[in-house]
């Protein structure tokens, strides 16, 4: 079997037994990138030479039988919103085209210490604003399961790369569903950690009270391995939690017997594609068959989660994106007046969705509208949190579909921003409450992957991973591969 299609948990023992070298493994991904990425466009930038140099260094250390760090010689694809020192980081935007950050994000520093090799930077919706990767200034990524469809977003490049075997795993970021929704649409595993579990230092900010970096992988075990490398307190991010990091791999065993699972009634209502409902119901039945106790819970504030999220996130974005003014990095439109330089630079550098969200956020924060919109949204956010608190008095995990539909067609929702926003209806409440959530493959509808979402208590990633792993061991959805080699753009 092509090593590029194996999970990292199976690659590591092969490297240690020296049945495979880091250079051979890297070559397998580079070959597949050459073959498929012209069509899929999962990557914005592949650093082949730097990766080969690093791989050769790990070849020698494996050959010497050195004591090696946990992920030695394993490549990783990184969403282009995460700063990589000296390696172009655009955030999917013209305004940062060609920018080489002078520092690494903490997540990158940790990965390098763990021995991982940066394979390339993946495509995304500009500034992570979108649910289809069509808002990238550098063109859309295509879904490996059907190249006429979107991979989801905003971490669509990372999801497509992992699904297509163009990387063993990837980093994504999730502000309103941007890890879990593309994972669902591409048939892979995506984990959004609890807010504060992974450092945001060097993650280009969108909605700072919501953003988290997390793993996008082929298996739940790989998600545990990658989270282990990322998680922990960071003096450079004052919102990281100073809490011990559990052993996530150890948490995988144990099964779900006696675990209390709550199916959210609102997750199974109208607007859900019938094939998605069937797959999620079947997944719940599988978990019940494994000994979990199922009951229904209710999250009534979900009806208000979408406006709440878009007001909070865009308000934060309008402030965060004020720094792109043509002074310190990226694009500048040269005009003699400084204020005009700011606004002409921003008009030329930002795409329509980014401008739309900056406008929304600026409006929500402006005099006369602050109380009616922004403050109201912050209060409604408390209702969303209370819903989960009430549910977690009775159950250990909440079950929801990850996305109400399977992957939609390219172009289908571009003209209607509200329709696009609805793609994240089941993931957004989890960010508002700051909780950990995972999407795992749970079947197919119309030949396209469906994801099951499991949501846990704050910092209870171990229970989330344990239930997801038990489900994965009982099913084989995660072993399905996209029909890539026959895929053609018509």
């Amino acid at each position, binding site marked *: 079997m092509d090593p590029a299609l194996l999970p990292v948990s199976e690659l590591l023992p092969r490297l240690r037994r020296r049945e495979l070298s880091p250079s051979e493994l890297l070559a397998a991904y580079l070959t597949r990138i050459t073959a498929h990425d012209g069509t899929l466009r999962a990557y914005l930038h592949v650093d082949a030479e730097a990766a080969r140099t690093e791989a050769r260094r790990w070849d020698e250390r494996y050959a010497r039988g050195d004591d090696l760090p946990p992920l030695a010689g394993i490549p990783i694809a990184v969403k282009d919103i995460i700063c990589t020192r000296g390696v172009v980081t655009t955030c999917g935007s013209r305004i940062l085209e060609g920018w080489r950050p002078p520092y690494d994000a903490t997540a990158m520093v940790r990965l390098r210490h763990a021995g991982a090799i940066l394979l390339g930077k993946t495509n995304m919706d500009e500034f992570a604003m979108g649910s289809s990767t069509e808002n990238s200034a550098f063109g859309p990524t295509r879904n490996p399961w059907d190249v006429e469809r979107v991979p989801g977003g905003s971490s669509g490049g990372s999801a497509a790369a992992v699904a297509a075997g163009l990387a063993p795993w990837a980093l994504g970021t999730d502000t309103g569903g941007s890890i879990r929704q593309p994972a669902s649409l591409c048939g892979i595993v995506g984990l959004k950690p609890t807010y504060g579990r992974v450092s945001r230092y060097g993650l280009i900010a969108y909605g700072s009270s919501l953003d988290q970096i997390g793993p996008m992988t082929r298996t739940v075990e790989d998600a545990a391995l990658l989270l282990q490398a990322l998680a922990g307190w960071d003096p450079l991010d004052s919102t990281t939690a100073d809490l011990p990091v559990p052993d996530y791999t150890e948490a995988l065993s144990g099964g779900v017997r006696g675990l209390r699972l709550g199916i959210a009634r609102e997750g199974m209502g109208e607007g859900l594609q019938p094939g998605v409902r069937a797959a999620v119901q079947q997944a719940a039945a599988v978990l019940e068959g494994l000994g979990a106790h199922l009951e229904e819970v209710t999250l009534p504030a979900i009806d208000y989660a979408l406006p709440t999220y878009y007001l909070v996130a865009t308000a934060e974005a309008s402030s965060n994106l004020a720094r792109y003014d043509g002074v*310190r990095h990226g694009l500048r439109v040269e005009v003699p007046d400084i204020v005009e330089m700011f606004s002409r630079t921003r008009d030329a550098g930002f795409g329509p969705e980014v401008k739309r969200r900056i406008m929304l956020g600026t409006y929500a924060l402006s005099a006369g509208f602050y109380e009616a919109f922004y403050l109201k949204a912050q209060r*409604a956010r408390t209702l969303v949190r209370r819903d989960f608190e009430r549910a977690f008095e009775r159950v250990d995990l909440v079950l929801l579909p990850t996305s109400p539909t399977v992957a939609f067609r390219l172009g289908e929702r571009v003209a209607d921003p509200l329709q696009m926003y609805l793609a994240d209806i089941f993931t957004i409440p989890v960010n508002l409450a700051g909780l950990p959530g995972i999407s795992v493959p749970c079947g197919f509808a119309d030949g396209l992957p469906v994801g099951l979402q499991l949501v846990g208590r704050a910092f209870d990633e171990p229970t989330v991973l344990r239930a997801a792993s038990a489900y994965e061991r009982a099913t084989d959805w995660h072993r399905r591969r996209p029909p890539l080699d026959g895929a053609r753009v018509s």
Partner: protein
Amino acid sequence: MAIDPARVDHVARLARLSLTGEERAMFTEQLRNILDYFARLQELDLTAVEPTSHVLAAANVQRGDAARPSLDRAEVLAAAPAQEDGFFKVPPVLEPA
């Protein structure tokens, strides 16, 4: 609270965006639709509900007052559109006397 082209222009000015006429028309319609949908928040009586600005129990975080290495000035300036004498260079902000 109506969104009209004048309001869109005002918000664009606050956000330092110089919109084209086409963008102004598009945003007027789209922001109106989005805010109409968001008006469902006004159904809620939230007067007794505390706002959430942060999900974790936040406390002030301070580090020891010790000097640490900073980013390299030359490396940072290398990424700037214009620089001079170790500074970011911008168009004049003051009229010459």
